[in-house]
């Protein structure tokens, strides 16, 4: 329950720092300086942008359906924000702690699509409508491989509860952890750290993670899947007609979504809030960087590790955005339906066999 007080400031700070980081990273990749004028190294640039956005006139086009137009940013932001409700932050701090956590998460971020469709249709602008249609087609196409790849993890961990999935990837794991899952003679439960992560515990999850990562990029409408907002052909896609603070919520939701899928990736594949450092003999790195369960330090370490992993994920998103060119719509659909979906169905069966073989 108290995670609400953590996530609301986080989603705001994340957007402010994320936009600044994106500008600086894109500038670095393209060999430019990026923002330099506002504050030292342009660090106040996004703050200045927010001050501008607050003062900006809120225009609702006369031809628009104003009810849908005004409701859309609310729906989009709320859908993304309520996804954070089930994210566990440390061993003792687990948000809603639902038994169907990951299922709920997939369901609630799908509501995002409704908001996008409302924004595009309600604007009554051709650019917005095309952007929204493309966006919806893309998000629902990639939801299938995304869901299937999450399902693979669920099959291996046998739980939908994100906290249970997190717990099974560290020192507090209730099950025995074997080296790479196959070397049954080596019980590494006491090592913890990176050896307990799902992706190392069950190396079959590495291709699953690749599918998850590609699908999550598409879910965020980020390049190379940014057709909905392709600025060179569609101005700004579904939020062409928005201005002022309503527009700001689209940005907030976009960066919130990046954070959410990066956190989900960290929880499902990279050990959630568990430390990456293993115990080695007398050098108890994992114990030192975890803190005793329930103690104050365990909260700090949990939040620290989860956020670091999520920020690395966000950095990957930005890196890819500024490296690869945009896909064409037919390539986009081919990739989802002809490659990722059959591949994830195959991986689903392999994961089932893996799980049964592991417990045999």
């Amino acid at each position: 329950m108290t995670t609400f007080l953590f996530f609301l400031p986080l989603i705001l700070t994340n957007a402010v720092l994320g936009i600044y980081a994106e500008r600086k990273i894109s500038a670095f990749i393209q060999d430019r300086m990026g923002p330099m004028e506002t504050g030292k190294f342009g660090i106040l640039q996004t703050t200045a942008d927010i001050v501008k956005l607050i003062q900006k006139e809120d225009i609702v086009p006369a031809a628009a359906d104003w009810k849908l137009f005004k409701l859309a940013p609310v729906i989009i932001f709320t859908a993304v924000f309520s996804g954070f409700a089930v994210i566990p932050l440390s061993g003792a701090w687990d948000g809603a702690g639902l038994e169907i956590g990951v299922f709920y998460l997939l369901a609630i971020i799908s509501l995002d699509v409704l908001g996008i469709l409302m924004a595009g249709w309600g604007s009554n602008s051709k650019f917005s409508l095309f952007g929204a249609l493309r966006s919806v087609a893309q998000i629902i196409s990639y939801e299938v491989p995304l869901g299937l790849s999450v399902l693979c993890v669920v099959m291996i961990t046998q739980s939908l509860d994100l906290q249970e999935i997190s717990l099974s990837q560290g020192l507090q794991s209730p099950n025995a952890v074997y080296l790479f899952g196959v070397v049954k003679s080596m019980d590494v439960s006491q090592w913890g750290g990176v050896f307990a992560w799902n992706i190392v515990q069950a190396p079959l999850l590495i291709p699953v993670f690749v599918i998850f990562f590609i699908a999550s990029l598409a879910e965020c409408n980020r390049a190379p899947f940014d057709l909905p907002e392709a600025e060179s052909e569609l101005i700004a896609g579904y939020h062409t007609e928005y201005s002022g603070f309503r527009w700001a919520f689209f940005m907030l939701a976009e960066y919130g979504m990046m954070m959410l899928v990066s956190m989900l990736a960290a929880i499902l594949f990279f050990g959630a809030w568990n430390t990456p450092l293993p115990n080695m003999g007398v050098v108890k790195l994992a114990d030192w960087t975890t803190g005793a369960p329930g103690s104050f330090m365990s909260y700090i370490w949990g939040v620290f590790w989860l956020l670091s992993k999520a920020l690395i994920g966000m950095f990957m998103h930005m890196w890819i955005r500024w490296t690869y060119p945009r896909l064409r719509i037919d390539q986009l659909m081919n990739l989802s339906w002809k490659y990722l979906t059959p591949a994830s169905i195959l991986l689903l069966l392999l994961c089932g066999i893996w799980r049964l073989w592991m417990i045999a």
Partner: protein
Amino acid sequence: MPELSGFGTILLFIIGGFVFVLLSVGFAMLVRPNRPNIEKLTTYECGENPSTSAWGKFNVRFYIVALIFLLFEVELVFLFPWATVFGQKELVDATGGLWGWFALGEMTVFVLILALGLVFAWAKGYLEWERPVVEATRMDSKVPDKLYEAVSKKVKSIRAEVPVVKEEVV
């Protein structure tokens, strides 16, 4: 402070998100100017006056994608509860390993039937996105081809006579 249940927390997040958006838009409303005029309120179309409403026809492909999506999303809804029980150690041990393989076999049949649906859509070409066929335009001229050839031959012979002056790079 009373502890909220799991779904209570989710309700808190949903209401909290809603209220946060309304509060910030409300705050911006106090600060921002509001001077609409007819130019500002027109739909943006790169400076042109919009001639028609955007609420018209759009590509039927989007419907087909939505239908295929629906098929697989329903499959996912069925698979999620199954995934948490098929490999439970107690159940597998109690049946001597039979439980897991039987459950997996059953689900394989179910997934394969759905995969057959994908193969059907693929074979029927529903997954192909229409692409415009680029055709070279024909420019039929009344001037016969031989005349063009004669002219170009003449030009070539003139060009061959003119000495090419190579500029010295300084």
